[in-house]
């Protein structure tokens, strides 16, 4: 494992073999709700180390690893410690750290950008402005504290071998129709996030409730056919790939496309009625130990080079590629169906305790989560 330049991976919590992250997560969740799953990865500086930053992320390393490595080509004197959490765990940890005012992580990366907005609203962020941040569209940054550095649509993913072509839905109405018509066939074979565990899941469900009048019917329908819920995108994609789950709803397209590139027999659909586009967010906390190096990394993420690479690895979705996603045969243009989640104080609605509790309760009432 200790090949120079390769990251060393260690898991905290129950010490198990590296790579068996899915199992670790599942076991950790089974053992205790309090127990947090996390995975530590070290990227030693390629040259002699002059600085070291700790990135705490709720975004899987597989997607980000190319960017971390590319950054180290630009900044070979920086060692990066990368710790991965489940979104809600990261939020709890960051909140506590901010409240205690103690030095800690230098950068937070999270696909649950509403949580970063909440942290910034609580005064946990620190501002950073540069030529690169000025180029970030106003809807993808807030207060110069939270920056969106990716653009990933939430897609419908299906197993090509299991779902016949005529069954593939292209709108939510078609999906509802399919679940009604062939409920016995698809019962137990539709997957999505457990929104109590997954920040992305919650954010996407919340966006659905905002954008669509069909939301109530959708979760009702999901409840009826026994929705398979998972904490993380990769898990559901695996399930779909293996055929356990036929159709996954609201899954980050970047993961699905990654799996597709690896050869998975899956299809990725951007629903035509609307498709929510999510930005993963980055924020330098007020309590960063080495904010100047953190800024270098943030600067890289937002730079031409970083954005170009993000586009290449599929973290930034290009609407021009939509045709390849076999979604738009009947759709006039990509831009019309895309609903980017605006990074701003509007996302605080997602983080309101009462609202959140009600939303979750409503969700649970319809869907009994599956282990």
């Amino acid at each position, binding site marked *: 494992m200790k090949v120079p330049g390769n990251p060393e991976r260690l898991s905290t919590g129950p010490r198990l073999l590296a790579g068996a992250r899915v199992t670790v997560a599942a076991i950790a969740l089974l053992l205790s709700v309090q127990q947090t799953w996390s995975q530590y990865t070290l990227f030693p500086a390629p040259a002699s180390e002059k600085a070291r930053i700790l990135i705490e992320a709720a975004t899987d390393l597989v997607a980000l690893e190319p960017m971390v490595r590319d950054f180290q080509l630009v900044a070979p004197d920086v060692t990066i410690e990368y710790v991965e959490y489940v979104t809600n765990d990261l939020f709890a940890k960051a909140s506590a750290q901010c409240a205690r005012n103690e030095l800690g992580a230098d950068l937070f990366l999270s696909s649950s950008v509403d949580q970063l907005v909440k942290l910034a*609203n609580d*005064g946990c962020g620190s501002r950073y402005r540069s030529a690169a941040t000025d180029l970030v569209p106003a809807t993808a940054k807030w*207060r110069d504290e939270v920056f969106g550095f990716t653009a990933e649509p939430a897609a419908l993913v299906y197993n090509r071998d299991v779902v016949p072509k005529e069954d593939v839905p292209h709108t939510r109405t078609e999906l509802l129709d399919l679940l009604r018509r062939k409920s016995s066939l698809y019962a137990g074979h539709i997957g999505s996030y457990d929104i109590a565990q997954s920040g992305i899941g919650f954010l996407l469900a919340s966006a659905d409730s905002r954008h669509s009048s069909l939301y109530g019917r959708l979760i009702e329908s999901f409840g009826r056919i026994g929705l398979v819920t998972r904490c993380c995108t990769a898990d559901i994609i695996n399930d779909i790939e293996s055929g356990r789950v036929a159709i996954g709803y609201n899954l980050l397209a970047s993961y699905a496309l990654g799996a597709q590139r690896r050869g998975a027999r899956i299809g990725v659909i951007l629903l035509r009625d609307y498709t929510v586009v999510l930005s993963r967010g980055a924020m330098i906390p007020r309590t960063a130990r080495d904010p100047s190096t953190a800024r270098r990394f943030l600067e890289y993420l937002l730079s031409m080079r970083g954005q170009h690479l993000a586009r290449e690895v599929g973290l930034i979705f290009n609407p021009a590629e939509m045709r390849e996603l076999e979604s738009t045969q009947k759709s006039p243009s990509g831009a019309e169906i895309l609903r980017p989640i605006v990074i701003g104080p*509007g996302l*605080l*609605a997602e983080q*309101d305790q*009462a609202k959140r509790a*009600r939303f979750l309760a409503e969700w649970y009432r319809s869907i009994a989560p599956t282990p």
Partner: protein
Amino acid sequence: MTIFRTSLYARVTIMLGALLIAGALSIGVAAWQYAIVAADEAYDRLLSGAAFQIAESIRIEEGKLIVDPPVSVFDTLALSRGDRIFYKVTNAEGTLLTGYETLRLPEKTPPPGAEPVLGNAVFSREPVRWVSVGRYISEPNLEGWASVVVAQTRQARDLLAFDLTLKAIGILALMSLLALAMVMITVRAALAPLHAIGEAIDRRAYNDLTPLSLEVPREIAPLAAGLNHFMQRLSDRLTILKRFIADAAHQIRTPLAALSSQVDLLAHERDPEKQKQSVGRLQDVVDRLGRLVNQLLDHAMVIHRSESVVGAPVDLVALTRHALRDAIPMAADDSDLNVMFESQQQAITVIGDSVSLREAIVNLINNAVTHGGGRMLLVRVLQDATATRVEVIDDGNGIPPEKWTDMLQPFQSGKKSVDQDKDRRGSGLGLAIVQDVARAHHGEVQFESRTGLGFVATLVLPGEPSPSDASLR
């Protein structure tokens, strides 16, 4: 700042510029205050609206008080994009329903009611604007005012206020610059007549002293009038001088002709007796000529002094006494002349030029001796509240009143030339000298025939010249 003293243009421009800047600054401050109020008013509506929406969402479900802030609240507040949002919803007992537990209102805030209460505070290290509204719950057990507090940081408000102020100041600066430009143009135009006057005078021939015929604005009219008046005086003076020179030349030419003929006569006279007579007449002519020249010089001196000498205190009593002593020996031929001197006081001080005054008094006395009856001469120095008077009284017939004005002009003493009036040895300049001195002292010469007393010639000097009039110009 020498330019300030030397240039009217600079003075007006700098003063007005300073005034405009001061005005712009004070209006700028006022605009800033107003902009803050305006921005607060605008955003307070959004804030209150948000609080009302949250209050609206408070309801009772299954016997429990719950709140479900609508998404639109956050979307409304998110209109001020850069601002942080804090809120807190509590039930009548103060138990948190949702929001920020730590958000607290200042001590003296009234309890929540239907009317929103607004205020400023600091929360989470940032100044915030907060609003508090209540919602009355009438359910048993839960009865009371549930409270909704919404706070927002001031970034958007400050930005709006700054923007408003900047625009106001921009317009203000533009207006001020325009005003300044207008003022500069106006001042330049206003000062143009001065240049015109200067040029008009420059263009004139040396001997052209006619009044300026320029059209000038009312404000500059006094200057033009002053200039015209000055030129008039210069012209008058020049006329007098010309006449004086012509007269003097004429007066000197006659005795010189007489002198020439006497010398001619003497040269051809062989009879010693007649030679002797001739020499005697020659002597007379030379004497008269000498006196004439002396008086011409005296007159010139008086005129010169009246224009150049600054006044000083002069004791008029002593001065007159000395003048009398000097003048009488000159007229001592009339041995039976009874000379008297009177003065009210030991000393009477006036401000003036002692040399000129003495010359005037001497001439008055000489005039009285020359033209008087030859038996009595009274000199008096008097002072009352308004004037000091030197009176010279003789027992002669005096000058007829119709000639009093003429007498004061040079060479006008009774229209008698030196030649025609051999016995009376006046040169025709004496009273003119007195008149010039009197004028230089802002006074005058008065004549009067007093029955039983004689002819009175008086030099009147105004009583107490103010210090600024002390100059004899």
